């Protein structure tokens, strides 16, 4: 394993330290328990957004703390959900009475840890709501499973709901919007290479020279199936079609599209994917109204890509366009 790290135990904390040193006007952190929060204290009474999850997905979530998005983020160990202590402390830090929305990606560990935090916070009389993001169409959704994973949709949701919170929406409306967004966003990803969890020191899975993992999540977990190498256009179609089907997108629909790199994919390749995605949607009469192309929710140094589509409407687009100022997403200010 070759990585730009010091001791394996310090990867998460040193990386967050770097983030905070590089963005002193934006974010601060507390050490015990560990979480990142906005540097500028909220003056107005706004609903606070708190998310978190395993580390290794940078810029998610620490990179999205700031104006118009999250109020705090709780980084767990690499690919390991944060613990209730972190969540409870973060919520208490950023709650100013208007209540807090927890944004949870649908993984058993994340769900359970946020749930325990939730129980504790409710016992202490803090108004807390929760939204679960489960947008990965690679996973079959059934009553007998844990449902779909939360992946790229999380980024879009944090932006849109963050804008609503900034506009002063109350907790109930913020939560309803979050549910609405979560219900309209779907993703699918693939990997050209595995990633290496620092504590393990070797790649999580081994891929042959000409193999691709289709339907991966964001934890280096194996996907649904392994296929031979294909041209980017073919792969893009393999990711896009299931999303279109699942969202039942039809001619006339509008979407926000995210073409997301898994950490080790060059931007050049992501644009090649975007090119085909745009073409596929255009052919079907679906308009990409807004887009993001880049590394927004990653799996360490994995090479690969995921596509996320959010079925947009006027309200969603309006919130998308409102200013945001975080270390990883910024416009309008």
């Amino acid at each position, binding site marked *: 394993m070759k990585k730009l790290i010091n001791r394996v135990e310090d990867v998460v904390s040193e990386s967050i330290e770097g983030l905070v040193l590089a963005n002193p006007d934006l974010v601060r952190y507390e050490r015990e328990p560990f979480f990142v929060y906005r540097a500028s204290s909220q003056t107005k009474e706004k609903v606070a957004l708190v998310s978190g999850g395993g580390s290794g997905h940078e810029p998610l979530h620490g990179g999205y703390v700031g104006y118009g998005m999250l109020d705090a983020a709780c980084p767990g*160990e690499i690919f390991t*959900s944060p613990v209730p202590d972190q969540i409870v402390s973060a919520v208490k830090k950023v709650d100013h009475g208007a209540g807090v929305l927890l944004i949870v990606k649908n*993984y058993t560990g994340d769900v*359970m*840890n946020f*749930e*325990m935090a939730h129980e504790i916070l409710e016992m202490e009389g803090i108004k807390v709501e929760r939204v679960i993001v489960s947008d990965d169409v690679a996973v079959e959704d059934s009553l*007998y499973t*844990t449902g779909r994973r939360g992946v790229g949709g999380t980024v879009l949701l944090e932006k849109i709901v963050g804008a609503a919170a900034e506009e002063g929406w109350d907790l109930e409306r913020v939560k309803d919007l979050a549910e609405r967004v979560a219900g309209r966003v779907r993703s699918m990803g693939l990997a050209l290479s595995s990633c290496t969890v620092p504590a393990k020191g070797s790649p999580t899975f081994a891929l042959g020279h000409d193999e691709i993992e289709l339907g991966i999540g964001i934890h280096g977990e*194996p996907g649904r199936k392994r296929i031979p190498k294909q041209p980017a256009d073919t792969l893009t179609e393999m990711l896009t079609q299931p999303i279109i089907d699942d969202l039942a997108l039809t001619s006339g629909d509008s979407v926000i599209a995210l073409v997301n790199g898994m950490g080790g994919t060059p931007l050049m390749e992501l644009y090649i994917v975007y090119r085909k995605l745009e073409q596929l949607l255009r052919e079907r009469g679906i308009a990409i109204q807004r887009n993001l192309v880049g590394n927004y929710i990653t799996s360490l140094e994995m090479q690969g890509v995921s596509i996320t589509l959010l079925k947009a409407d006027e309200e969603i687009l309006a919130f998308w366009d409102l200013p945001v100022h975080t270390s990883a997403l910024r416009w309008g200010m």
Partner: protein
Amino acid sequence: MIDTARLKAWLRRYAELIHVHKDELTALDATIGDADHGTNMDRGMQAVLHILGDEEDANENIRPAELLKQVAMVLISKVGGASGPLYGTAFLRMAQAVGEKEQLNEEDIAQMFAAGLNGMKERGKADLGDKTMVDAYARAVSALSSSLAEGFPLKESLAQAISAAKEGSDQTIPLIARKGRASYLGERSRGHRDPGSLSTVYLFEAALVFAGEGEINHA
């Protein structure tokens, strides 16, 4: 009778087994999960060791329930992932189950483990056959109770529990996972052992110290 000191010996032994098998657990998790189960459990049990050691004198005479609750809190605040809340909740329920008792008899131990199982199942909503730690845990609990009920001594009953846990763990291999990360793999989760089921096997293996085994390894 099992007192706080004996419970500590159990936990020390468990920490040791987890530490020794850390890479094995992580490797299993790499195959159908995210390659961290060994790391998670080891981080948690090392933290447990820390409270056992540090507070050696101070809490020598705390009650079993207090010890179990402390362990629960450490696991919940150090492990993270799925296994942290699951084992953490199990220990929390164990603490509740032993109540005010200073000494636990065989029955109490069986009830303690059974209460842990309930906590784990409530937290994770998994049942037998979902390919999780519950597959090992639940079988161990049944074996322990029925063996004791049939009048076998604790040592033999624990041995039964361990075999049952191992068997439960083995039985996860052909299953398709319906809970946890492995469930995302669908058909591809078949043919691989669930990592959590193996860390549960070690939990019961360590419990042999209740029957006077294993302490020799520890100060």
